[in-house]
């Protein structure tokens, strides 16, 4: 992830890919969603500076960018934790215990639905249908689907993610 989150820094980082996205459409406005996604991938979240940079790159009013960023739930306007857990609680997952699991996760991580742990390791969101109802309950960890969740599987997953983070932190510390 890049660090220079000034308007100029964001523009430099995204210019080529945003122009490439814009070329797929007859109107620049259509490239707002792809541009926001590119920005989020690069910087981890989107904010006012991002909107201004995208507006300038696409030559569209900044409010158009904000309107889109604030409408779609996959755009993170606050930086999520290292692992964003999105647990589906919709009907088919609910019927197989997802709501109870969400409560359990809230207790275990000591965060509310939509919150991030104090160590910034986990964000937790109860979300709507993820389209994997045959593998209910289903959880997304960042971009990956984890299927057929059970309490035991959940516990093992959290432990594994914590371990992964500790190992990476240790490596970074050593480097």
């Amino acid at each position, binding site marked *: 992830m890049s660090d220079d989150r000034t308007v100029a820094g964001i523009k430099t980082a995204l210019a080529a890919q945003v122009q490439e996205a814009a070329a*797929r*459409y*007859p*109107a*620049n*406005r*259509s*490239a*707002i*969603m*792809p541009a*926001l*996604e590119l920005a989020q991938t690069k910087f981890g979240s989107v904010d006012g500076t991002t909107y201004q940079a995208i507006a300038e790159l696409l030559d*569209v009013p900044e409010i*158009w960018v904000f*309107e*889109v960023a604030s*409408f*779609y*739930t*996959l*755009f993170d306007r606050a930086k999520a934790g290292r692992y964003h857990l999105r647990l589906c*609680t*919709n*009907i*088919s997952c*609910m*019927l*197989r215990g997802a*709501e109870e699991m969400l409560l359990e996760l809230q207790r275990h991580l000591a965060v509310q639905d939509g919150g991030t742990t104090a160590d910034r390791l986990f964000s937790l969101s109860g*979300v*709507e*249908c*993820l*389209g*994997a*109802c*045959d*593998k*209910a309950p289903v959880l*997304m960890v960042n*971009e*990956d689907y984890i299927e057929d969740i059970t309490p035991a599987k959940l516990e093992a997953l959290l432990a594994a993610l914590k371990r992964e983070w500790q190992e990476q932190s240790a490596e970074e510390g050593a480097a």
Partner: protein
Amino acid sequence: MSDLVLLRNIQNPEAPEVAVYESTGGYEGLRNVLRGYTPDQVVEAVKSSSLRGRGGAGFPTGLKWSFVPKDSGKPHYLCCNADEGEPGTFKDRILMERDPHQLIEGMVIAAYAIGANTAYLYIRGEYGLSIRRCEQAIAEAYAKGYLGKDILGSGFDLDIHIHKGAGAYICGEETALLESIEGKRGQPKLKPPFPAVAGLYECPTVVNNVETLACLPHLFRRGVEWFTSMGPKDGPGPKLFCFSGHVKKPGVYEAPMGLPLGEMLEVYGGGALSGRFKAAIPGGVSAPMFPENGFDVKMDFSSLAEAGSMLGSAGVIGLDESASIPRVARRITEFFSHESCGKCTPCREGLTWAAKILRRIEAGEGSPGDVEQLEMLCGSIFGKSFCALGDGAAWSLGAALKHFRHEFEALIPAQAQPVQEMRLW
């Protein structure tokens, strides 16, 4: 299940590769079309196949195409709706992940029929694997001459671009989907004008579902007669059904339309997870549920419509004896309330209010009159918004209240004071 059509490649992990797809008859339908049909003849063939849309509304596909004007002087667009989000539905994801060329071939055929040289494939952002598989399939199709300039020497050009959604159920509504591609919030627009006349960038546009488009290669490889020999006359062809919830064997199954709901729940769903079924939702959560004594309803477009529900997205959700219907209704209503785009007051306010009442009933804090209040709300939401989101919400809640009123009333303490009645509309 020996003669699978849409799912014939589903068990082959190499099916996403173009050579493997070709070896099973892939792109033959497209070759037939480009060699032997004018665009009008393609539209006529699809009309005579009686293919109906697999996205939810079940509109006749050929008829939809025929509304595209011939001489608009504007570019035409094809959009594939892969923003699958109706709870209980996961068939389009399977089609894109396991057999993406089937969809790409269908898109080329549809684009040729409506005279579109640009097509957008709108895939929900969460479907990472679907996006990657379709990107790869599109790249292979360009390399093989199935996309790009002068496709298979026919003189027909087509570019397909993927547009990723970003987490909004409402973008599965066709006018909202088009707004989203234009780079706006996904808020539905009043129809008319219909997209066929003024759609994407105010140009003639057709929006078709993944499964609908995936039917086309087979239709043009095996013929209209073969197609219409499957299932009911007024809406034939191969069909996918998704089973989830309280069933023993959740999954996507290809089955003929017209089988009774109860039989499908046993044969494909594997029966109830515990005890007996209490109810089932036949076509995603927008479709009103059937109690167990209504399980003889046939699973096809017309039979379900006559029985007061719909085939919808064919997402069948089983509810066994352990299910609390007020809880199910609360969760479904919360979903619609959360996904309401906020444009139309009855949907935005009505669903917020209904969810609030359902939450207090479930918590044992309901009041006498709450059930009537919910019924009043259903009537005040249904048919009073631009799109079908509010309709689906009111329709499904209404069925839960109708068939399982006793379960709601049983949760309301007898001595509770009624809340003061308030009428907004």
